[in-house]
């Protein structure tokens, strides 16, 4: 089932809303978020997803990672996440 998520891409000027399937992997979500912000934020570096203060494992699905509807997720590049 697709769930709405509030998304903030580091370096961007606004928050976005995406619909994400629970079965989507964290890596796939990260790629999608990077494309969504591409008009303002140049893609680059390894992408990481921050959720409730923790960096998520890229191979996990969103359900496995504990992401639920209307949660906030932040997209960082590796340098930002370090």
């Amino acid at each position, binding site marked *: 089932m697709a769930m709405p998520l509030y*998304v903030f891409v580091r370096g961007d000027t606004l928050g976005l809303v995406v619909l994400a399937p629970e079965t989507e992997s964290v890596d796939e979500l990260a790629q999608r978020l990077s494309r969504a912000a591409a008009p303002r934020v140049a893609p680059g570096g390894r992408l990481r997803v921050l959720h409730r203060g923790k960096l998520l494992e890229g191979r996990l699905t969103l359900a496995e990672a504990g992401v639920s509807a209307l949660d906030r997720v932040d997209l960082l590049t590796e340098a930002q996440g370090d």
Partner: protein
Amino acid sequence: MPLREEWCDLARKLDWSFSYADERQVFPEALSGTPWLPAREWRDWDEPFRSTFAEYVATQHKKEVSFQAIAEAVGRVEDISQLDPGWLSAVKLHMATLPLAEFAAVVGNLRAARFGRDSAWRMTSLLGALDELRHTQLPLRAMHDLVRWDEQFEWTHRLFHSSDWVAVAGRHLVDELLLGSDAIEFAIGTHFVFETGFTNLQFIGLTSMAKQVGDRLFEQMLQSIQTDEARHAQIGHPVLKKLVAHDRARAQRLVDKWFWRSFRFFAVVTGFAMDYLTPLSARRASFKEFVEEWVVDQFQSSLDELGLERPRYWQQFLDALPIYHHMVYASAYTYRATTWFDFVLPGPAEQAWLAEKYPATWPELAPVWNNITERWRAAGPGVEWYTHGTTPVSFCNLCQLVLCGGTPSENSAVFVESAGRQRVFCSEPCRELFEAEPERYASHLGVVERILQGQAPANLLELLRYFGLSEANFGRDVHSGDYDFLRPPGPR
């Protein structure tokens, strides 16, 4: 014939004692405002203009004749079409967001003209209502003739009747401030904070820019309106003075609330115009400099005079002043089709000016504009979509504006779970204001809630239609990406 001073108060300050109705029934607290005070407490209420109706009509007639002459001389399509296209976008933004809000202010003033607690207050509010009617009609009449040339001018009338996101945010503010407030809150929120504190930015700051640009129609219109604003804005001070004397905490709360909400509104309307849409050659000061002069200095001295503290969100306001409107503009530029006016891409000269005016914040914003610039360079003129977002954006549950608080490296959005529902706010002040009066705001559906409940489409193209926009009028880059600085260097 008696001297003016002898009859003036008969015409504007004449109260009477009620014999067959209770004063509380005549002036119920829900409409007259809190705290409810007996008439004797209001007896010394006064304002400095002390106009009578006859004087008002004579003065306004002169202003109308003067404006009409200007409109006939320089308000034709052939005059307006010569103006800078970026400046025309500033005019379209102003014309759509303010005149119909002024129409709502007619209602607020009329409520005070009936339920204000002193006759002089009621009289001045009646003149204020007539002012606001004029402030609606002048722009509607002046812009009407331009619609056949440029459909975006139709949004002078259309915006507040649409479901566009700017209209949703604008109505949320206007409905509460101008339509839903009692006479005391209206006087403080509208006259003292909004008009005394902030409209000077729009009506004085932009007037000087209109003069530089050569837009005499807009310049004269703003000047004509400002003379009215200067008079009826005086209602706020004596009402606030009375409130400070009887309920200081409430006085402070109302100033706190309307200061923050007004700042958010003007940061968008005036900030866009001053720092981006006005051509560089016509800019006299940055938005931040205007705010420092008109709001930080002048508004603060008004508060000092009344013995009130700075607004509770003063520090957040100072932090947001050099960045918030830049965040919103960059965001809106990349969602420009969701508005009815066009956007200017800041080139190297504009960016250098912005870097000088905003040395602490521009380094974080420059990469965003460099990215947009490079994408225009890659796509070429006319390919609007390559610098345009397609993913739905998120909005604050209080101000209803896009979540653009904080900085690019740290968005200040706040998430709160309450009554089984998740809410999101662009900032701590918006969260606090919502939680202080949830009964006022909880049932409102913002754009995202409408999408999630199936009332509005999630697909951007369909959402544009829901907003009331079409290819004929939605916003674009003013030059469709055809800027000299984007062209490859020619052969040597």
